[in-house]
């Protein structure tokens, strides 16, 4: 076997290929940017820059990095698809959907109580039937609602170190009016954020409810009202 081969035993990771440099064994990008996914690094590089990503990864424990890279890749992808709002656009749409569901649920509960009140208290058997029907319907709903946008092994359930404090975000929150055009909805959400300005602001408060003004530089008159049409 020739010992003069200059070929590396491992192909360079997507990052080093993109950056046109030798992929060292200790390359920080290699575990998370495999060579068969060149677009992933290209997007992350375009939005965040390689050195910023390196700094971010170096601040994390190794077991946290995969999820961090996948979330950065997702954000970068969203930003490239929507250069104005990026992930914020996704968030505001989901908030709108959540608000709509809350209203639908409230209407449904009210309708259910009307039916229940009409018939008086149902028998035990009727309760059993209602529970069975509800369970069957809910199981069907569950199968349709599996969501995992974090492909590449990170998984929606992975990590979770920074997520737990998000879980009680939405119980009592105000939403922007649903009949506002989409752009106004995004802006409303952003405007609701910034006025906190306080260093005590935590991410769990970023969601609706506790947001105040996000809009910047109002004083210098740069803002022009968005045409609602």
């Amino acid at each position, binding site marked *: 076997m020739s010992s003069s081969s200059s070929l590396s035993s491992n192909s360079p990771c997507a990052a080093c290929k993109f950056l046109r440099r030798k992929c060292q064994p200790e390359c920080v990008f290699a575990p998370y940017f495999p060579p068969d996914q060149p677009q992933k690094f290209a997007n992350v590089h375009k939005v965040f820059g390689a050195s910023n990503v390196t700094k971010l990864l170096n601040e994390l424990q190794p077991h946290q990095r995969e999820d961090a890279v996948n979330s950065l890749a997702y954000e970068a992808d969203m930003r490239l698809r929507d250069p104005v709002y990026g992930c914020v656009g996704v968030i505001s749409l989901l908030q709108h959907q959540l608000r709509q569901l809350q209203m639908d649920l409230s209407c449904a509960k009210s309708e259910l109580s009307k039916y229940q009140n009409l018939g008086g208290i149902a028998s035990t058997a009727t309760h059993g039937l209602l529970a069975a029907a509800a369970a069957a319907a809910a199981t069907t709903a569950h199968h349709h609602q599996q969501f995992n946008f*974090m492909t590449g092994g990170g998984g929606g359930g992975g990590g979770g170190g920074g997520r737990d404090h998000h879980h009680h975000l939405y119980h009592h929150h105000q939403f922007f009016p649903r009949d506002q055009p989409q752009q106004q909805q995004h802006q409303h959400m952003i405007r609701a954020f910034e006025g906190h300005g306080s260093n005590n602001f935590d991410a769990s408060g970023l969601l609706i409810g506790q947001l105040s003004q996000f809009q910047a530089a109002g004083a210098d008159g740069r803002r022009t009202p968005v045409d609602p049409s």
Partner: protein
Amino acid sequence: MTNSTRCAACKQLRRRCPSDCIFLPYFPPYNPQRFSYVHRIYGASNVGKMLQQVEEHERGNVADSLYYEAYCRIEDPIYGCVGIITVLHEEIYHLQYQLAKIQAQIDLLKAHPPLQGLEYSANLLADQNGVYASSPSSFGPSIHCLY
């Protein structure tokens, strides 16, 4: 021609702030954290590029959303604002689940409104497995099997 008061970006980058500085309208000097955060996550030149590639009337929204995402990322270095999206999806799923349950209950009650009489209860109790008996009933169409 430069600005007498530099914008937050030029202050932090330690350079002169020209009158046509792209950062000036969106990173005012009285809010240094705004530029500091986006600079930390995206870098100044990336922010400048992202502002330049959209029309002027959209740049404020770009700056705002970048700040929002940078803030989220600093607060949650692993997931950033993607963590919020995940939670939103979970909340939506939870509500859809609740709604499906209630809708099923409503549909059942619509099909078989509960009556006060004992005969109806007796019919329901006839089959312990929750399957309606196929014997004639005066209470509307029978459902032979719920599953």
